[in-house]
């Protein structure tokens, strides 16, 4: 229907030369509208993506020039590196702790907020406000809150009697607790956005469904399990996927707070890429590591999408 106009104009314009020009303009116009974004997409997404891949198959000098093609040697080498294997393990461990919490916490908040009826504006703003706070500010705030000696968290735990027989935990300085502390920080930063998404989804659950279920004597949790969760499953799935990628590619708080330490306990895959590429200027190693990180995240996503067919309904 829209193209009909183009033809009619072309016919009505007198003179074949003009007609030709007009037609040409009409043909290239859509591409002109798309040109700026396409150029930048190729330049800063696809070109670097391919380049990273080629780097991972080559020897690269400090200036970022390829000196030799080495095939899969870099990949064979990197799998022999205990520090990279450690980085994969750390990332998986982080994701295993982070993803369930990052989905369940905002979901619970959304369910509670959907039921509560007064001061809604106040607590919704509270739940959503972390969205506006940057990663670096968050990290610096938590650095103080989690301080071993004068941090409020340890003070609270001490007052609750947790530390009666044990010494206070050095949250960011001990190999055992640094990763859980980073999980806490990442949950806090992500909670606002996911909460808003899930709240919008929960509010869209048809009330007739819930009412008829209550008439038949369904309890609240039954309703949540049998009605709310299936209805909001597309949004839940979206949150799950984004949080999974976020968990597997986490690096910001590591850089700001722990520098991968103590003893590599928080060296995630992307932090490894950063330290290999920019601290040791080993671009080939860094590129190989980032391709591996990408593939690992991708495999997990594929796994998700496979499950999606069974668990998510888009009706």
């Amino acid at each position: 229907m829209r193209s009909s106009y183009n033809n009619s104009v072309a016919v009505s314009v007198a003179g074949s030369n003009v007609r030709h020009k007009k037609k040409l303009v009409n043909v290239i116009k859509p591409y002109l509208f798309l040109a700026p974004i396409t150029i930048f997409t190729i330049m800063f997404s696809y070109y670097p993506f391919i380049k990273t891949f080629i780097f991972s198959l080559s020897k690269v000098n400090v200036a970022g020039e390829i000196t030799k093609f080495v095939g899969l040697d870099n990949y064979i080498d990197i799998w022999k590196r205990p520090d990279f294997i450690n980085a994969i393990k750390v990332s998986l461990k982080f994701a295993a702790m982070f993803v369930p919490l990052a989905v369940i916490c905002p979901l619970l908040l959304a369910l509670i907020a959907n039921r509560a009826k007064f001061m809604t504006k106040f607590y919704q703003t509270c739940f959503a406000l972390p969205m506006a706070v940057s990663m670096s500010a968050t990290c610096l705030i938590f650095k103080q809150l989690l301080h071993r000696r004068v941090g409020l968290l340890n003070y609270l735990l001490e007052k609750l009697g947790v530390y009666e027989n044990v010494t206070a935990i050095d949250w960011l300085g001990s190999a055992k607790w640094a990763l859980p502390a980073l999980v806490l920080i990442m949950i806090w930063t992500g909670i606002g956005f996911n909460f808003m998404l899930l709240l919008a989804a929960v509010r869209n659950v048809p009330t007739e469904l819930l009412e008829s279920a209550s008439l038949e004597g369904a309890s609240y949790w039954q309703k949540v399990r049998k009605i709310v969760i299936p209805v909001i499953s597309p949004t839940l799935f979206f949150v799950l996927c984004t949080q999974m990628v976020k968990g597997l590619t986490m690096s910001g708080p590591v850089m700001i707070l722990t520098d991968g330490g103590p003893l590599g306990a928080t060296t995630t895959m992307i932090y490894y890429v950063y330290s290999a590429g920019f601290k040791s200027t080993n671009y080939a190693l860094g590129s190989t590591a980032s391709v591996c990180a990408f593939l690992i995240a991708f495999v997990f996503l594929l796994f998700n999408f496979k499950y999606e067919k069974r668990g998510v309904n888009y009706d």
Partner: protein
Amino acid sequence: MKTVNEKARQRKKFQYYFTSILSVILGLIIIFPLFYAICSGFKDNINFDNYPPRILPETFRNLSNFIYVVTKTLIPRYMLNSFVIALSATLVRLIFSTLAAYSFAFFNFKGKNVLFFIIVGTMMIPSEALLISNYLTVSKLGLLNTYAGIVCVYFVSASQVFMFRQSFKTISGALRDAAYIDGCGDLLFYIKICIPVSRPVITALGLSSFINVWNTYLWPLLVTNKEEMRTVQVGITMLSNADSNAKGHVFAGIGIILIPMIILFAISQRNMVRGISSGAVKG
């Protein structure tokens, strides 16, 4: 004697108060770190080493930390940098993605689906995997330590293209045909009709993009090494690393960089909720 019905009603009333109070308490817990940070800006540097730790400062009238940060550190310059970067990235992003969305919404042309897939496909590539190559590109172009070098990677936003396409599709093709016959070209139609009609979407996406770019850390850290080109996010961590005893200054700095974002957020919250829910509910 109370009937069953009345009991049920009372229980419902109780639940309703209970969840409301619970929500308020949870909200306060979540917001606590922010409250703590703002309060800490008013404390003296020594205050942070005292045990037991205190939440509230002795007085809110002690502005010396804020004055120090504004006059003695580069934080104002960092804020200017971040502002320029976030604003220019957001504007260019909006222009690029509305233009692209216009093309996808109103034209039929060869390769439309392929191009759409290429642009939306960037959502699958995590930006972290591109750091090294993008760094090399920017340094080869001689853009290290420039605004252009920092913002150039933010120009493409696939999700914006997606949302604007949805929004433009609500404008009927008949309207566009009518405009055509009146001699209104595509560019004019885009400027005079599409942009004003999608104003709510533009504000929502624009504000959230501004906040996102303002908050980025890693990329600006990589492509700048000159003091005066740092962004606030990088600058504030540098301030904290440079003098670990000056925590009062750090928290004052955090307060200063947080307040604009919180204000922006308060203004845009309603808009953003609408933007988020309209785009994502369908999964």
